């Protein structure tokens, strides 16, 4: 009733199902870190509206 032939790839279906959960999570954390690092590279001048305006994207 289980697999009738020999199997060497175990658990990959469960990994498949998990891709839409863990991959976006990792990517989003990456984006936030990128945004944070980019902000720190821009000189701390409150008048740089340009940088200011573009930074706050995220998630």
């Amino acid at each position, binding site marked *: 009733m*289980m697999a009738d032939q020999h*199997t060497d790839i175990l658990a990959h*279906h469960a990994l498949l199902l998990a*891709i839409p959960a863990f*991959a*976006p999570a990792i990517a*989003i954390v990456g984006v936030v870190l990128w945004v944070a690092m980019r902000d720190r590279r821009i000189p701390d001048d409150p008048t740089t509206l340009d940088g200011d305006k573009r930074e*706050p994207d995220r998630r």
Partner: protein
Amino acid sequence: MSTLAASSEGGGAALDQVIGMSIAAALVFAGLLLVGYLHRNRKITWLTRLSEAFGRRFKRPPWVALPLALFIATLICALFGFIWDVSLHIGNGRDPGPLANPAHYFILFGLFLLFVAGMLAVVLPYDKPGPAAVRITRNWYAPVGGILMAGCGLYALIGFPLDDIWHRIFGQDVTLWGPTHLMMIGGAGFSTLTAMVLEYEGRLATRDQEHRDGIGLKFVQYLGFGGVIIGMSVFQIEFDFGVPQFRQVFQPMLIAAAAALGLVAARMMMGRGAAIAAALVSILLRGGVALIVGPILGSPINWFPLYLGPAVVVELLALTPLIKRPLVFGALSGLGIATVGLWLESLWIAAVYPYPWPLSVWRESLAMAIPVAILVGICGAMVGMVFTGQRLPRRAIGIGIVVATVLVIGGAVANGLQYRVPKDAIAAITLTEVSNNNGHKMVQADVRITPPDLISARPNWVSIMSWQGKLNNERGIVIDRLQRVGPGQYRSTRPIPVWGSWKTLLRVQDGHTMAGIPIYLPADPGINKPAEGIAALRPDAKQIFGAPHFVSEITILQRERSFAAPTWLWTTACLVVLACTLVLIAALTWGAGRINGSETSRAAEAEDRPKVQA
């Protein structure tokens, strides 16, 4: 989560599926990113309006109320999925296919939304959310609790790909205590603390406003601590189902540690009766889930510690002036929990669990539980100090306590993992058929162990366990503690199944001795295993006799596991998981310290230079 699907086909369809799932992943990513981007740039208002509605309802800032509501819902969902999943694996064995185990969806969604809840708290606030908030950009600050919650979610989710790699290298480990399984359940478990951190930050941010926390909010806080207790109890689940694959000495230690952290912090933050209330909430939640999974869904029954004995110990200690010295209170609570508390808990364990604690378990258990509970109790007290705005001890001391706790737990676990398989010990087993309906063969077992003094008078257990017999056959699990009829002689007390997909084995645990003998293991072509055990080799005989040697239990219980991989690989893999775990604990410690530092320095400066919150 406890075991994942065994695929039956090779590559073929998988590539399509990988592409499909990757597209789904990209869509999820793009959707979240878009909402976050639009919200941060104030191009949408629905998220703000939604969160403000929750904020008004719960009298907390929007960036606390909405994420916490989502958190509570998702974590209960994950808890249910987790318990159900474990029960399905116990009753049914490994999954026949990817869609065959509905519990996985609850876990996956639960953990994913846990991450989303944390990110929501990070993304929502336009203004700086409290003094401890972490700068992301110059006009975007995130609450510590949100960052930690998202971190816990991420840690748990990373468990999935690591789990897959793990299974490919080492085969499936059909135990909850696979390192990657511990990541998934540990991430969810620790996230309960981060929810309390977020709740506290929200409390700080609204303390100037005129309102009192209503009864609903109080319940949410009790729920939070009940959640912490359950979160810290997830490591015991194998014991709760009566299928522990590790030594019994772990169980008292795990109960004491969970109690020390959750109950001490609850009592400190919420005052008189809070420890008992938190224990009651955890009973309610675990009881509800157990009721749905067992009696309603027909899966194996699971029990849970009550934590009432430990809660009473904490409450009584808190009536003394000790409560004014938090670290001492935490340490003594830990001591009380690990002694009197555990004794009270043992009465409940004896009443309902398949394996009560024999007298012989106490010496080693106490040696493990007392130091662990004292240190965890001190950590619980520090959590309580953070949530009550009391200044933590100096940074070096605080971090030192956390490090010492981790080391002591590590030492206790290392000791718990020590066991021996007796060499040249055999058990002469006689199986006599008692019924056979349509091939559903049930037997009575007589066991004669040689040498007869292998097992002491008070072993942890000598039992025959049958599991994975499918849910419609006695829920797929039969545990029979054998009756001792003479030196080294035991007899079963009920019919034992030896047919179909059941896996039946003799289990012996006595102090450090832990071993088993397969009685009936069906052929399993999926993992290239032939039928094993005396009952499996002669299925038609009315009476079967055999005298096999004891072997290590994991070779029977974790039949799917591959022992071919080299030891260094195993060690490296464990170290990777350990590193991830230490990062998580360090992050929680950092978060608690950060909130406490900003809060206590704010209080100190409050008189002359009140700070303006951005």
